[in-house]
């Protein structure tokens, strides 16, 4: 009994430290992924970078999540398809925003999405946070004639997508085991970018360096975007190879 209680007290401490480390490293890899991707903007443009990024991310997620697509039911497919659409729009709007207003500003504005989700969950004392965040946005955007409102709008669209992504990911996580749902969504959004990417790459012939940058962006951010909660799902639901 004593050992039971001790183990339940120690476990959260270690898992919290590991969680923080995972969060910091995934955030770092996600942002460096975006920065490396931005290096290829001059050659293939933000849409080209996002296309290659989605292909790589789709392949990585398929390999990690190994979704059994044939066994998905209609109830599992619709949130997966919605997640794929949100995933696709989120990245193209974020990368287009990075191109126009810079990485720091774009990511900060995109961050208002998860902030809104957290505020909706906090219920009480949320008003203070809303005021703080709104002040931050006003300071960042400093409305003036020279402001790039399209860039700001794209970053806010990415924020909306990220909030939707979090909510949909919860639904997908409940309906499909482990990482299978997120993996399937990543693969579908990669498929969506096949025609778009081919068109862009034909119009703007890529250099090997640009392709490598975009692929590195996909690799770095797909390892982080499959959020920590999903890794926790994966840890508590090891992908069953034997059960059918």
């Amino acid at each position, binding site marked *: *009994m004593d050992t*039971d*209680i001790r*183990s*339940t*007290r120690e*476990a*959260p401490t270690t*898992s919290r430290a590991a969680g923080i480390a995972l*969060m910091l490293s995934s*955030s*770092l890899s996600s*942002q*460096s992924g*975006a*920065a490396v991707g*931005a*290096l290829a903007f001059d050659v293939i443009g933000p849409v080209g970078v996002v296309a290659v990024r989605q292909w790589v991310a789709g392949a990585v997620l398929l390999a990690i999540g190994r979704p059994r697509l044939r066994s998905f039911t209609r109830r599992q497919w619709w949130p997966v398809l919605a997640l794929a659409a949100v995933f696709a729009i989120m990245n193209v709007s974020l990368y287009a925003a990075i191109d126009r207003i*810079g*990485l*720091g*500003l*774009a*990511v*900060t504005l995109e*961050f*208002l999405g*998860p*902030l809104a989700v*957290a*505020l909706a*969950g*906090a*219920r*009480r*004392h*949320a008003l*203070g*946070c*809303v005021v*703080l*965040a709104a*002040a*931050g*946005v*006003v*300071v*960042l*955007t*400093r409305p003036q004639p020279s402001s790039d409102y399209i860039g700001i709008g794209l970053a806010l669209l990415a924020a909306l997508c990220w909030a939707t992504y979090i909510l949909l990911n919860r639904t997908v996580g*409940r309906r499909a*085991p482990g990482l299978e749902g997120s993996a399937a969504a990543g693969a579908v959004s990669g498929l969506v970018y096949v025609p778009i990417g081919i068109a862009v790459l034909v119009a703007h012939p890529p250099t090997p360096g640009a392709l490598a940058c975009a692929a590195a962006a996909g690799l770095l951010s797909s390892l982080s975007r499959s959020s*920590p909660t999903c890794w*926790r799902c994966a*840890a*508590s*639901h*090891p992908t*069953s190879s034997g*059960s059918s």
Partner: protein
Amino acid sequence: MSVSPVFAAGIGAVVLGETLAPLDWLGIGLVVTANSVAVFLASRARRRAAFRRAAGGRIGSDERAARRNKVLPQRDPGIHRSAGHLPERLCGAHRGGMPRRRSDVPDLDDLVAYRGGLVVLVRDLVDLGMHRDTIAYRCRPGGP
């Protein structure tokens, strides 16, 4: 996650040569602060709700101390014991019957523990600080 904008601004400055005005850093700081506070408030609200559900709405003055120690209120011995030492009945999922393997558990959060007529969701045990893997381990037949 809260620090993402700071990382982004730093990496943008180093890798992409973006320069940010002091006001930009102030704005980033404000958004990051708002997010940290919101995440803290949300997790506290979840924890409190879990506590209320687990205690059947009866929260005493020892609530704060109990939460700090990651145990359920002493006044409810059934719940208290089930938090430290999960009962056998936890292994009965409310759908799908007895799982044979960990991977057969449809969704750990949907498992319920019955103790003294009270129902505890595993989700609530996790919110109270119990480790998922510990719960899953205990769900194995023949486990402790």
